[in-house]
Structure formats: C-alpha cells, structure tokens
C-alpha cells in the first residue's frame, strides 16, 4: 500500500456503516498497514446521519482525521454533484443506486447497493457488506481475500454465508462498473 487511503462512508443510523468501515480497517491492518478508523456521532442526532471513515497507510498515521477523502461512499443520496466537492482532487465518489442518463465525471461510480441487498440477497441488512465489496472492488485498497476474511470475522456466526455472498456481489458490481467505465472511456 503505497498510497494513503482515506475512505469515508455516509449512511443513516442502523445501516451498518460503522461495521463496514471497521471491516475495511481490519483488512488493511491484516495486510500490515497502519490504520485508524472512527465515526462521527451526529450532534446527538438519534437515528440521523452517521458517517464513518478509515485511513490506511504504510507509514504511521498521526493526524487521525480526513479533510477530503479519496474515497467517499454515500448510501443516502444519489446527488453526486453535492458530494463531488467534498472529495480529494483525484478521489473517487461511490453512490448507492443506478446512474442517471446524463454524462458523469470519471470519478463517480454508481453501485445499486440497496437493490443488491434487497432484491438479490433478500436481506437488506447486508447492504453494508455489499458496500465493503464495492469499495474493495473499485479501489483495490486491500486484497479481496483479506477483506473477505475480515467480513467473516465481523458478522454473526449464523450469517457468515449470506454476508460472504453480499461481499462477492459488491465486488462483482464494482467490477462491472469499472468495465463499463472503461468501455465508455474507450468508446
């Protein structure tokens, strides 16, 4: 890991955003990186927005905050323009949903996270693991194997199977999105 990864996830309370970020953190850690993870508790907002983040880097991480993430995943909105200015210049923005018809900037990706969890997995609660897959698939910040191991560690024993699938579907959706982008770029 030569790059310093700064990944932020935005969701609503109960969506498992914090767990997703912990899984990313543990994956990076297992691969020998330094890592910090935290979350913003809303201003005492119960059940309101929740944001979590991970920083992973080979060198030690002192300043523990993210000013502009290089990966931002938003579960709660598809309004990419609103979030574009929050990321780093060469950062990546991941949104939960289907892309609209208009042409998007190159660094914006849509992954239908909720739909995958809801329709394909029939377990909405696994959306956060789909997230993990999506981030790993799109960024390659950690190996899929490390991430999968971390997923298995952080979900209830009874739910390992379904979450493994969730992760894989997330990765797959990411690959598709990347392929599509490549296609449209070369087209």
């Amino acid at each position: 890991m030569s790059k310093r990864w700064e990944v932020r996830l935005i969701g609503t309370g109960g969506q498992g955003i914090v767990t997703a970020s912990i899984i990313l953190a543990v994956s990076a850690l297992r691969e020998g990186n330094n890592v910090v993870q935290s979350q913003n508790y809303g201003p005492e907002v119960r059940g309101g927005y929740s944001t979590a983040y991970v920083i992973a880097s080979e060198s030690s991480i002192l300043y523990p905050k993210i000013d502009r993430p290089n990966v931002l995943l938003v579960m709660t909105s598809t309004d990419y323009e609103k979030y574009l200015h929050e990321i780093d210049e060469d950062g990546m923005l991941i949104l939960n949903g289907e892309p609209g018809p208009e042409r998007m900037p190159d660094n914006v990706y849509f992954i239908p996270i909720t739909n995958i969890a809801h329709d394909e997995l029939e377990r909405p609660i696994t959306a956060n693991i789909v997230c993990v897959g999506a981030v790993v698939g799109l960024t390659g910040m950690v190996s899929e194997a490390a991430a999968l191991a971390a997923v298995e560690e952080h979900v209830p024993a009874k739910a390992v199977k379904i979450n493994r699938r969730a992760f894989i579907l997330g990765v797959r959706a990411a690959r598709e999105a990347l392929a599509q982008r490549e296609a449209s770029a070369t087209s």
Partner: protein
Amino acid sequence: MAEAKLLSGNDACVQGALAAGVRFFAGYPITPSTEIANAFARELPRRGGIFMQMEDEIASMGAIIGASCTGTKAVTATSGPGFSLMQENIGYAAIAEIPCVIINVMRYGPSTGLPTSPSQGDFMQSRWGSHGDRPVIVIAPYTAREAYRETGRAVNLSETYRVPVIVLMDEILGHLRERVEFRDEDLVQEISRKGPEPGRPFLPYENTEDGVPPFADFGTGYRYHITGLIHDETGFPTNNPVEVDTTMRRVNGKLELHRQDIERTQFVDADDAEILIVAFGSVARSAHEAVRTLRNEGKAVGMVRPITVWPFPEDDIRTAAAGKKAIIVPEMNLGQMIGEVERAVAGTVPVHALNRIDGLLITPHEIRDLVEDLL
C-alpha cells in the same frame, strides 16, 4: 502480546486497567466515555470482578474509593459534566490518600456543550477542580497504544503514591480505533500499594521519608480510621497547626519527591529546533504530523509532548525551550496549558497560542502555517 489489533482508545484504557489488576469499576454512562463502561461490564465479571452502574458520578466516585479501601484496584470513567460532579470526592481521595483512577474522556464544554465533539477544555480543571489544595497526577495519552500503557501506568502510580490519577483522554482518542501492536515496553506490570510492615507499628498516615504511608486493606486486622478531615499520622482528625501543616505538606509534596518516576515527556526533534511546539493529547498528533512534514522540508521545528501533564513538566519545557525562537502551544480550548508554558519559560521565549474552539481538531496544516510564519 505481539499480534496487531484494531483497538479504540476507550477499549485500550480498559485493557490497560485490567492488565494492571483493576477488578472494580463503578460509573455512570456519559458520552464519549460510555464504551469504557460497556467494556468493563463485559470484562470484569469474566475475571470475577465487579462492574457497578451507580446512580450518578458522585456515587461512582464514592464507590471506587470504598472499593479501594479494601485493597481492590478501582476505576471510574466519565466526561466533563460527570467530572465536575466528581471533584469533591476526588479531593477526598487525595487527602485520604486512597488510590483510584478516573478516566475523563473530554468532550466540548461547559455544561452539556457539544457532547459528541472533542475538546481539551478540562486541562486546568483536572488540576484545580476541587476546593482546597490537593495533589493529583494527570496523564494524557495520544494513541490507543499509549492509552493502554498509560492507563496501566496510571493504576500503578495511583497505587504507588496513594493519589488519585486522572487519565485525560478526549473524544477523538476515545473513539478512534487504530492499529495497536504491543511491544515489550508496553507490558503493564501489576504493582500494588505497599502494606504495613510486619513487626512495625502501623501508622496509616505515617510521615514516611518517601512521603507515602503504608496502606492497610480494610478487613485485614488493622482497624484504623479514614477521614476527609485533616488528620495526623494516626489518621484521626486534628486541628493542631503543626500537625495540619505536616500532613498537608506531605500529602501535597509527595509527588514532587517522585517527579522523575511520575513525569513522562516525549521530545520530537526538539534539540535543534528553532520553533518548538508544545502539545498534548490528540492535538499532539496534528503537531507531530506537522513536525514530520516540516522536517521533510528541512525546517527546524520540534515538539515537546507532556504525557504526564500534571505535575506539569516545567523543567522539561524550560530546558527544551532554551534558545528557541518561538514556542507554539496549540490547544482545543481557549488557552489553558499555555499558561503553564508561559510560566515555565518566564518570558525568555515568545509563546504563541493556537486555539480552536469550534469542535474540530486543529489540523497539521494550521500548525504548519503558524510555524512558517514564525520561522
């Protein structure tokens, strides 16, 4: 101990305390310290220890003092509002010399303030929050690893010197999970308070040479008296001026005798620096980051970080400050530690404040900018 794990600052405190032999926790939930209570609730019963949720912070402080009287190592955890409520009983622990550890995960105050935002607003309170003159040791870690080690050390210092020890965390450190890989130097030893010497008459508040009297656990055959009234060597109340003076000077002076053991200060590129940053806690992470960047750019900047913040390491600061062009004291408050730094350097070096009071951590950037202005 070698495996790396992801550990939050709050959890690290708990692990450190347990490693040092803590078997009693009493507390009252409060953001952002609550995870400490949660973790003790899980871990203590597994070790046959007691987790107690009290009716408020005053009671929590009372309960850990009580537990400690029996020789049990005891901890509480809280944040600003609860910390304010504990001050009377912290004073009691100080004058009755009952070991105990208070973890204060600072949040933005005063009053309810911004409960989920970090702050360093309790720096002065941790020293001066009780009425009367009382000794206290205050330790401010800046990483999860250090939270583990320093909480363990806090327990041990408390036992060794019979003094309340405050672990001064903040919201950022408390909630930050980070990679921790313990090394040998992180090993927390279990040190217990010294007991009565067999064959010697037991004086519970003996004016010993090292300033620390022996402690007899309740129920072990020494039937003595503990009181928050000023007492003589026997522990009974006195208002004889000579005895009062003796007790108070010993109790308040004992830490001075052991400064070397108690103090811990980190120096980062301080020797040849022109500009010195003095910072503690999570702000020191930003400062450290700034130093790293600036040094890479060849700029002569360094940092001194008090880990033991009280007693304030004035000698360390004075020595490190000698000959510098300027000192910067960044704090997430309106300027508290800076007063101590100013006092230590006594006008020999200009001291600059960098305060942030909007609920956000001071960034390395801001520090760098100020350093560059001053260079």
